[in-house]
């Protein structure tokens, strides 16, 4: 903590000396900050797959697809002021969400990938159906609760839509050397909502060769906590939950495939506090070093408090007995993709501290190599008080094919050291205070590589109403993580300007 204070102090002390220098920039005339309204459409398609689902305690499918889109409208209110409105959505289908309730209950699941099972509803008697261990259980028309961490359930919770709306107002001084801004944002999805606000100020000096900025923001978020089905039922009905509601007459097996009524997740309790607040202070400094080289350094000081765990991430303890629902013949294959029909009941959900202090420090350095190429680089060091340490480095090389067309290959490397509270599937102990098996918080390296293509119109080749095309950006990236998670993302951004 002392080191962090020292960094902030030195940073502020250093830049304050520059900010106090007289700026010799003279106002010759006052040009509009933004000449005309602009509207930008940003759309992306993202898909991923992996085999370390946090919802299933660190194993299982991580299939996810996401289609996201934003419309950003930038309006000059007068010569000095700009209003930006940003509205967007992100619609996803996720194996993680779907396996909050992994159990197929309508008996319609067949092993061909075209699942139509429901992940909500009431299970009927399965004792008779589970007497044998052959394949007769498949294709039955009778209700049967079974699932697998390797199969994406198809219930209501498998998909959701995140909607976002934000507004930003900025004002520039007459000499354009001082800019302040204020912003508001809201976002909402089924189990989470967020309200944010903030403001910042930027000062340019040294003939606009230097800039310092400071920004503060706060996000006041709230969960509508959803828990894994078995834990939810336990919380609702207590010790007698296996005779009620979802689990009424459902057979539970132990590790040896024997019917058991001993499953009691008594470590589990619902979270009392469902709020999550995030506060940040961002400091930035940028500098033109030569006619072709400029650099910026920036840091965020972030503090979060409240419910920082994800309520539906399962955890299985190594020192507790195992219990299952489904087809007992798959129990020996449970942690392999060959498991097509049994799901293990959770011991608890992930538990993480209720506050977190993060300190990311970043830098960008851009170099205009020649009229053909520009070099864009980025580096970030990150650490937090949960023990996670990471380094990020990226490089992009825009190559100008013509006045209008630019192609840019890019590469990003990321490495992180795991959280203190992370352990893989079934390696936590019930005596621990904090635990998670979320592989997003494990130790890994990742490589992201791809290319982009942009078109900037000198004269708009076509218009939509009064808006002429300004530029188009298309980019594709492949993301590969050392724990076998693979992802692809396509993005297109199109900007129009009012003419």
């Amino acid at each position, binding site marked *: 903590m002392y080191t962090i204070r020292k960094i902030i102090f030195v940073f502020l002390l250093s830049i304050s000396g520059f900010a106090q220098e007289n700026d010799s920039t003279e106002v010759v005339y006052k040009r509009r900050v933004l000449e005309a309204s602009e509207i930008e459409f940003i759309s992306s398609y993202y898909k991923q797959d992996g085999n370390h689902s946090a919802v299933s305690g660190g194993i299982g499918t991580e299939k996810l697809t996401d289609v996201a889109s934003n419309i950003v409208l930038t309006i000059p209110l007068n010569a000095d002021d700009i209003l930006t409105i940003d509205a967007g959505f992100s619609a996803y289908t996720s194996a993680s969400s779907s396996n909050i309730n992994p159990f197929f209950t309508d008996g319609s699941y067949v092993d061909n990938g075209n699942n139509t099972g429901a992940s909500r509803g009431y299970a009927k008697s399965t004792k008779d159906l589970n007497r044998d261990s052959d394949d007769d259980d498949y294709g039955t028309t009778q209700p049967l609760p079974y699932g697998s961490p390797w199969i994406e359930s198809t219930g209501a919770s498998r998909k959701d839509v995140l909607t976002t709306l934000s507004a930003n107002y900025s004002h520039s001084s007459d000499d354009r050397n001082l800019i302040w801004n204020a912003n508001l944002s809201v976002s909402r999805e089924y189990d989470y909502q967020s309200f944010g606000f903030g403001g910042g100020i930027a000062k340019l000096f040294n003939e606009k060769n230097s800039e310092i900025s400071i920004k503060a923001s706060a996000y006041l978020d709230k969960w509508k906590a959803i828990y894994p089905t078995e834990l939810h039922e336990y919380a609702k009905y207590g010790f007698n939950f296996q005779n009620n509601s979802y689990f009424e007459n459902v057979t539970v097996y132990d590790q040896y495939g024997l019917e058991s009524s001993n499953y009691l997740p008594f470590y589990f309790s619902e979270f009392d506090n469902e709020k999550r607040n995030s506060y940040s202070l961002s400091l930035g400094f940028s500098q033109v070093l030569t006619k072709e080289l400029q650099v910026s350094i920036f840091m965020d000081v972030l503090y979060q408090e409240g419910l920082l765990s994800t309520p539906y991430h399962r955890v299985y303890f190594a020192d507790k007995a195992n219990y299952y629902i489904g087809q007992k013949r798959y129990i020996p294959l449970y942690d392999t993709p060959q498991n097509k029909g049994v799901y293990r009941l959770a011991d608890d959900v992930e538990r993480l501290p209720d506050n977190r202090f993060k300190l990311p420090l970043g830098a960008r350095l851009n170099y205009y190599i020649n009229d053909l190429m520009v070099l864009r680089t980025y580096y970030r*060091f990150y650490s937090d008080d949960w023990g996670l340490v990471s380094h990020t480095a990226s490089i992009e090389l825009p190559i100008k094919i013509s006045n209008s067309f630019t192609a840019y290959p890019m590469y990003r490397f990321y490495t992180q050291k795991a959280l203190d509270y992370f352990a893989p599937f079934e390696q936590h102990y019930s005596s621990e205070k904090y635990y998670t098996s979320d592989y997003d918080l494990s130790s890994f390296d990742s490589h992201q590589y791809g290319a982009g293509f942009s078109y900037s119109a000198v004269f708009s080749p076509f218009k939509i109403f009064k808006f002429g095309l300004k530029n188009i950006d298309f980019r594709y990236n492949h993301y590969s993580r050392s724990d076998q998670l693979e992802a692809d993302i396509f993005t297109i951004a199109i900007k129009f300007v009012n003419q």
Partner: protein
Amino acid sequence: MKYTLLIFFCLLILQSCKSTQVKEYEKQHINDREMKLSAKTAERHETNFQVYREGASGANGGKTGGGCGCN
């Protein structure tokens, strides 16, 4: 050690920039679209998924909070 190096790096830049005086009319390369010292708008959805799939966040000019990032 890392923090000391960072502080040294910051001070070095700050000292060097005292003598930097690139005039406005000399900034045609600095003002090139590709030279912007910020992430491109087309990167924002990539940044979102990186925040979801990685433990680190911040210091990239994007959002510093809000949203659960839980899918």
